[in-house]
């Protein structure tokens, strides 16, 4: 005999439809805005501009991947789950360390490991606070954000520190198959992230830790290690992004911390593009490009950049309200 076990009530079907509608709506909004810019903003669709958007998105993308991993491993319920508010400030600190070391004449072989190690240290501090001390992540990472921002200022004395190295030249000006080095970084980085997060056992287990800690523990997964790992990764992502930041600006400049908002917006927005309404690498990538295109389009249309922060803030509110509405069962 066949077992009849499917949810048969109308509610669940309506509910699934609703989810689908929200997801399709997100894609439609994305496409709609792209088409709008393509039609109204002169030069939006030129290959130069599109590459420019992708290049701009690389740094944002690396940071957003970091925070996406934290969201995956700890759940997107910010108050109960996890978040890494320190990631942008951390990237600023790493960039400062990197630029200062280059300026003092140390080569990339020392400066790059130092920058990455700085990022990992900050990541470790976050993991220690959240997992070992069990401080609310949004409070502990807020405190760490201030420490990192303060250290950045202390290292740079709040000045622009110019930096140059062969690697930076390659990153800034190199091209391969007509695509710039920074764009390649985003492509390769995203591909690696997809492989790890969506195609490896580690990724699946990370999702299970973030989705239901008790369930993960009950099958013998050491949940704490995964959460630690996600904060460490977030620190690593900050370190990697810092090199790209220095490459793009040929310097370390104050104000990297301001990237926090678009990064958060991208990571939260990304969930709307996924079937399960969870953060995914693909969703985050799409969201990063969306946010990049948005500020680019604004620029081309001559809309004041003062709107950008407000639009991003509003975007976060809309996305969170919509996803919480979609998740409600």
């Amino acid at each position, binding site marked *: 005999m066949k077992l009849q076990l499917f949810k048969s009530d109308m509610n669940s079907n309506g509910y699934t439809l609703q989810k689908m509608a929200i997801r399709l709506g997100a894609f439609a909004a994305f496409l709609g805005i792209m088409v709008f810019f393509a039609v109204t903003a002169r030069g939006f669709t030129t290959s130069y501009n599109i590459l420019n958007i992708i290049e701009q998105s690389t740094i944002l993308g690396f940071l957003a991947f970091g925070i996406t991993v934290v969201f995956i491993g700890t759940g997107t319920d910010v108050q109960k789950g996890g978040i890494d508010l320190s990631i942008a400030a951390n990237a600023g600190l790493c960039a400062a360390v990197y630029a200062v070391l280059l300026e003092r004449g140390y080569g990339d072989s020392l400066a790059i490991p130092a920058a990455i190690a700085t990022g990992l240290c900050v990541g470790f501090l976050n993991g220690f606070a959240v997992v070992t001390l069990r401080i609310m992540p*949004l*409070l502990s990472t807020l405190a760490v954000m201030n420490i990192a921002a303060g*250290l950045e200022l202390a290292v740079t004395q709040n000045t622009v520190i110019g930096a140059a190295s062969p690697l930076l030249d390659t990153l800034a000006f190199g091209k391969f198959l007509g695509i710039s080095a920074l764009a390649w970084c985003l492509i390769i980085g995203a591909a690696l992230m997809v492989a790890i997060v969506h195609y490896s056992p580690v990724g699946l287990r990370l999702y299970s830790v973030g989705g239901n800690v008790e369930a993960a523990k009950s099958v013998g997964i050491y949940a704490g290690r995964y959460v630690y790992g996600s904060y460490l990764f977030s620190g690593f992502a900050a370190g990697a992004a810092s090199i790209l930041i220095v490459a793009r600006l040929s310097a370390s400049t104050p104000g990297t911390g301001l990237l926090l908002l678009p990064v958060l917006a991208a990571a939260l927005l990304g969930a709307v593009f996924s079937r399960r309404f969870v953060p995914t690498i693909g969703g985050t990538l799409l969201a990063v490009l969306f946010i990049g295109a948005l500020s680019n389009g604004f620029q081309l249309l001559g809309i004041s950049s003062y709107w*950008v922060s407000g639009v991003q803030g509003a975007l*976060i509110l809309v996305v969170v309200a919509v996803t919480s509405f979609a998740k409600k069962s």
Partner: protein
Amino acid sequence: MTVNNKTLTPKMSLESMSHKAVYVAFIGVFILFSMTAEGFLNFDNFSNLIANKVVLLAIVALGMTIVIAAGGIDLSVGVSIDLASMAFIMMIGAGHNGVFAVIVAILVAACVGLTNSLLINKLKIDPFLATLGVLFIGKSVQQLATSGGVPIYLTKSEFAAPFEAITRTSLFGIPTPFLVLVACVIAVYLALHRGKFGRYVSALGAQPGVAKYSGIRVPFQLTLVFVSCSVLCGISGVLLSSTVRSYVPLAGDAFLLDAIGATFIGTAISKERKPSVFGTILGVLFLAMLRNGLLLLGLNFFWQQVGIGLLVFIVLGLSFGLRKRAE
């Protein structure tokens, strides 16, 4: 009357140790600075410290205390401060009456709290993200209103009267801003520790489900919580702009971490690790003293920021870590 003493004693001692630790740290740091930092132990230094650093932060921290006691958080305190300050300066600049300007400024701040509570109650966004969104929208609003963040200075003597009425007056030798702080402390103390409101707030903070199942108007109480926080921030904003006779866009952001830090340092003095008015004031004094001491020791602003960040981190670690142990 059986209480299991065996299991309670070690917990009690750990807890009592941890909440005495804050006093010990406070006195320790005080003595340290008195000995090492030249000019620290000095009446002018203290009165200057209180007038310039303590009053403004303490009023904001009181607001944050209410929100955190209710189990929420308000990242948009800076917006409330700035918008109140902006409204106040613009009103004065336009030649309006000082009292009217103060009222408008505080109403503007209250609107920020109202927005927060609408997002939380109606759209079910959690306080952290709701106030984060408002924080960034507030930034845009200020940039748009000031063409990208150009400060408004009202240093001309024709505008001086209302500012002097706020900052230069005193009662029985006590300057008005300090009196405002005292009034705020008393008001928040009465509401939070002696009033019905405080009961609802602590129920919300301890277990919102229980509050709901006890017939408490949860959305209404949350609105009160967020609006009162914003109003306090608005008061602080008015005092700030009167002191500097100008409106500097985004100046309020600097208060956020200190207010959160002070509130959580304050929780460390209570056995149940609850936010309290007394604790918060102690936290504010601690932070101000630390910043002042570090400055007098010759540390620049950047290292002060690192120091404060580390201190808040350590206090949070103690507060959460020991609570975990006690449970």
